[in-house]
């Protein structure tokens, strides 16, 4: 789990106070790409480590997880290039 930023409370307060909104087109991309990659990672990991048949994650599925992480990284880099993330 990531540690909270030292100014995280202030950031949330700023978003709330200034009513900052993420444009719909950015949401669409985030929902679709980030959402699917995170869900896939969670399903891959959970299907091995929870339930009755707990087992270590096989290398093949570990590689799948890495590939989804790479796709998230690519999305963030594209957003950064477009200037949507500063």
């Amino acid at each position, binding site marked *: 789990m990531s540690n909270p930023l030292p100014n995280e409370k202030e950031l949330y307060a700023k978003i709330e106070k200034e009513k900052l909104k993420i444009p719909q087109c950015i949401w669409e991309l985030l*929902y679709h790409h980030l959402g699917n990659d995170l869900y896939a990672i969670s*399903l891959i990991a959970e299907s091995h480590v929870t339930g009755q048949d707990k087992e270590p994650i096989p290398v093949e599925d570990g590689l799948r997880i890495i590939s989804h992480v790479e796709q998230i990284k690519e999305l963030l880099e594209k957003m950064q290039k477009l200037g949507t993330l500063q």
Partner: protein
Amino acid sequence: MVKQKMKLLIIDDEKDICSFMKSVLAKRGFAVYTAQTGARAIPLAKRVKPDMALIDIHMPRGESGIEILQKLLKVNPECKCIMTSWDKTRALQAKKLGASGVLIKPAQIEDLEKVVSKAAQKLITTRCRHV
């Protein structure tokens, strides 16, 4: 008497989501089919007549999840359709169009099992009433 497995169709453009949901639900005794587009899902639904379907709302290629839901209910009105999405508002809107349930992503496997069991239970109750 041969006990038939319930048939479940997963429609999601993400291959890994289809394949891991399939593996989880097949272990729970369902006969699982997958499709990554509406163009593949509808002919498959006509052929296998699924009892239930898990439909991703955000489908980038071809029809949206909502359009697939409407087509699927036309060809198979008894099918219990569960809409999956990160967007709770859109998922809930789909309920007004005939979806039986919603699964908000990223859901844990436990949530997936719960929503599918609930739909299966509804189906059994409906079928018992008609016997």
